[in-house]
């Protein structure tokens, strides 16, 4: 169940099967898929000397090359392929598609292949971006892909198709034919579950795998059941970089960082090639700081030894260690730059204070002190508008049902502190979108006496770190699932049912996942509890992209009634406000 490996295997198989010098043609979606798991040098070592996009019209004619096309079958890419085959630029063509190819497309390609250059037509199901071995994303982000159709309960049809294919590809590449469970409250999760089930039936011949003792589970969840996790500040390395700077396909843009060296304007974070990152990606900033210190010291020791070259032996040793040394020096400066930028941002936006309140809102909920702190932070000019909006959103999610909540005066306070109307409207959107009426589980554990007691008990145990005490709702769900206690009434099966403890769990989250959840999954898998989990979603969110997605959806919904109507909810007291 290592999805990075399975994508790598697909690609290695492709470049190994075709011998000799070759060119690799990709499209706009397969390029990130391949870039996330392979490097240019690994392609070069397989005699793949040229990589290009199929939509690049200015490719030269090179008949002496073989061509591997790795393409996501869509009507546009098939059209491009048709044009390519009509006037082939390369000698032989080996076509690999990242998903199932319809018969009509095959027919169309066969019709135009008058030069008989096509040697192979294959379906290799590497149709998702594998980020960590247990974490994938379909990279469906705005503006290319919209998630919601014309209400918060309908899919955009183009996105829906892509999601179905993506989930199927995950299942096929892991060779799993699962039982499907979904979140009952979510219309979109149900639609997806049914469609995936239907497709598995339709492509029955593909899903013939060796039967396992316990059937794997595909669990389809909805982000709206847990709107809190993407709103929190993050303190572990991978999650923090994404929250503050943004990781896009393993690349981080540092060009806005003051006094950055030109070669560090854009950096790469890859588990495979960067042992330091692999070791520290799930550690919090404090431990990371200590590790980076020892890393720098190791580097210093090496520099020193390389400086005093006195004898031939020294020189010999230096030359031997030189590549290692160069690699180390590049890596050290990369991580030092990154971590110093992170701590600069933390300092600048007083994120420690913000995060403390966030955690208190998410985990405990002591209304009077929370409110006081919140008012204090809103008045603080150093804290960014986005943080303030996040805090008030968390507050209103938390105390939505509490009779003495004070959202209206907080919004007034935001206005007085010069936060734009546009941003304030988000608070209304998220309440509409993921308020307690939209959620099916007791997210804050405050709805029943039993869970309330559990909460108090948790508070008594004490916490290791104030800033990372929140654990996403997802980990609770997984815990219940592996114990066989996840209620069928709220997480029904599409077909069949089992009471066994599942061994392989594949989770897909409609509406995006977060790196915080990825970290929890990695911990669960590392604890080797006899089951394995793979998590993925439509995209990987940080707070900014999450806010944008919801906002974009709400501006388009005709039923939403515009910003004013949503805000009206806060201006006049209504059921308990």
């Amino acid at each position: 169940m290592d999805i990075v490996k399975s994508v790598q295997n697909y690609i290695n198989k492709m470049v190994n099967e075709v011998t000799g010098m070759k060119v690799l043609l990709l499209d706009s979606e397969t390029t990130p898929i391949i870039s996330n798991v392979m490097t240019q040098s690994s392609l070069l070592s397989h005699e793949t000397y040229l990589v290009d996009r199929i939509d690049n019209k200015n490719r030269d004619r090179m008949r002496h090359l073989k061509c591997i096309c790795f393409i996501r079958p869509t009507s546009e890419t098939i059209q491009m392929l048709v044009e390519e085959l009509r006037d082939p630029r390369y000698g032989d063509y080996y076509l690999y598609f990242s998903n199932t190819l319809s018969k009509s497309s095959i027919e169309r390609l066969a019709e135009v292949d008058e030069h008989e250059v096509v040697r192979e037509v294959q379906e290799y199901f590497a149709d998702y971006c594998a980020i960590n071995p247990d974490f994938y994303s379909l990279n469906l982000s705005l503006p290319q892909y919209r998630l919601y159709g014309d209400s918060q309960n309908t899919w955009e049809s183009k996105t829906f198709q892509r999601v179905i294919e993506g989930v199927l590809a995950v299942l096929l590449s892991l060779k799993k034919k699962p039982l499907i469970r979904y979140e009952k409250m979510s219309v979109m999760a149900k639609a997806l579950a049914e469609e995936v089930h239907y497709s598995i039936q339709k492509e029955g011949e593909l899903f013939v795998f060796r039967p396992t003792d316990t059937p794997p589970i595909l669990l389809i969840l909805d982000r709206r059941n847990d709107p809190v996790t993407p709103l929190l500040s993050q303190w572990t390395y991978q999650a923090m970089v994404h929250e503050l700077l943004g990781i896009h396909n393993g690349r981080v843009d540092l060009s806005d960082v003051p006094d950055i060296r030109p070669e560090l304007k854009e950096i790469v974070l890859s588990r495979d090639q960067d042992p330091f990152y692999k070791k520290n990606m799930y550690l919090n900033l404090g431990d990371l700081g200590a590790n980076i210190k020892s890393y720098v010291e190791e580097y210093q020791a090496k520099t020193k030894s390389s400086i005093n070259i006195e004898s031939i032996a020294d020189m010999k040793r230096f030359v031997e260690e030189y590549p290692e040394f160069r690699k180390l020096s590049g890596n050290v400066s990369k991580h030092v730059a990154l971590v110093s930028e992170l701590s600069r941002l933390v300092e600048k936006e007083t994120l420690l204070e913000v995060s403390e309140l966030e955690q208190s809102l998410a985990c405990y909920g002591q209304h009077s002190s929370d409110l006081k702190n919140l008012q204090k932070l809103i008045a603080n000019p150093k804290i960014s508008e986005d943080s303030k909006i996040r805090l008030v959103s968390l507050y209103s999610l938390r105390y939505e049902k509490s009779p003495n909540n004070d959202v209206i005066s907080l919004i007034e306070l935001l206005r007085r502190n010069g936060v734009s109307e546009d941003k304030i409207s988000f608070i209304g959107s998220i309440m509409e979108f993921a308020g307690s009426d939209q959620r099916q589980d007791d997210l804050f554990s405050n709805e029943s006496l039993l869970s309330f007691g559990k909460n108090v008990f948790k508070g008594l145990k004490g916490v290791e770190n104030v800033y990372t005490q929140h654990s996403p709702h997802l980990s609770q769900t997984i815990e219940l699932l592996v114990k066989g206690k996840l209620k069928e009434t709220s997480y029904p099966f599409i077909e069949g049912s089992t009471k066994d403890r599942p061994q392989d769990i594949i989770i897909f989250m409609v509406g995006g996942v977060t790196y915080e959840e990825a970290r929890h999954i990695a911990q669960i898998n590392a604890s080797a509890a006899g089951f394995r989990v793979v998590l993925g979603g439509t995209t990987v969110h940080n707070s900014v992209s999450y806010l944008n997605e919801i906002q974009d959806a709400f501006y388009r919904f005709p039923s939403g009634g515009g910003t004013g109507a949503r805000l009206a909810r806060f201006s006049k007291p209504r059921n308990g406000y």
Partner: protein
Amino acid sequence: MATRSRTLLFLKYRNTFARNHSRPLATSSGYDAYNTSEQAGLIESSDHVIELTVLPPKWIDIVDEVDDDIDQIKNLLPTLESLHKKHILPGFDDRTKEEKEIERLTDEITHLFQQCQSKIKRIANESLSSIAPNQERAMSKNIQTSLASKLQELSSSFRKQQASYLKKLKGRESKGSKFFLIESNDSNEDDLELGFTSSQLARVESSEAVISQREREIIEIAKSIHTIAEIFRELQSLVIDQGTLLDRIDYNVEQMSVNVKSAVRELDKGAQYQKKTRNRKIILLLLLLIFGLIIILIFKPR
């Protein structure tokens, strides 16, 4: 890792289409003429365009040569290693033949490395000098990188092998000299006043010869390490560092389109310049004409 092959279905469809269209192959383009050249007449009567691009660029041959050389090095390395091991073991036989063999192999490998390096350089020169299309140049650069990394890997393993052999040789030498030292001490005590006996003298001489030979060997090896290190350094500039942006596939693809775009821009600029020069030429011509007419005007009235 499920996969599904659609090749058979594709071929089936293709064959039906081919029959329907009564094989349009033979008349379609120059490429097919190339394919079916056996059936074609010797003298092309039609206006076929002979496609030169079917032929790979010249430097591809060099690439093959380098590949062969690399294979050869790969074969020689284990042989050398086993010889090294055999030579390190203590023994009483005459070793000169073995030593010669080791020396020869080391020389050969070093030579091959040098040869590869110069060939890679030649690829660079050839692809730059020819008026190659943009993409071909990109490809030759990629090929150089790939060859360089292959060579780099090999040379580093070769150097490590040499270094460990050297260390062992040195270790044996120092052990040996210790042994000789003790022995001479013993004899000194016994024959303090008698001076060296002839047999002792002979022994010292022979051990000196052995030592000097060792010395020579060590210098030889150190030299080969040095040469390889030089090659290593030169190649390093070609190799992509792991984990950098340069090693990203998407980055390279983006660069490619950026390059193409800038090339197009430059072409446009070139066209503009050309237009300008054409204008200038016309102006110059007109000026010359006017000048000529003036001269005619000056001379005519007389």
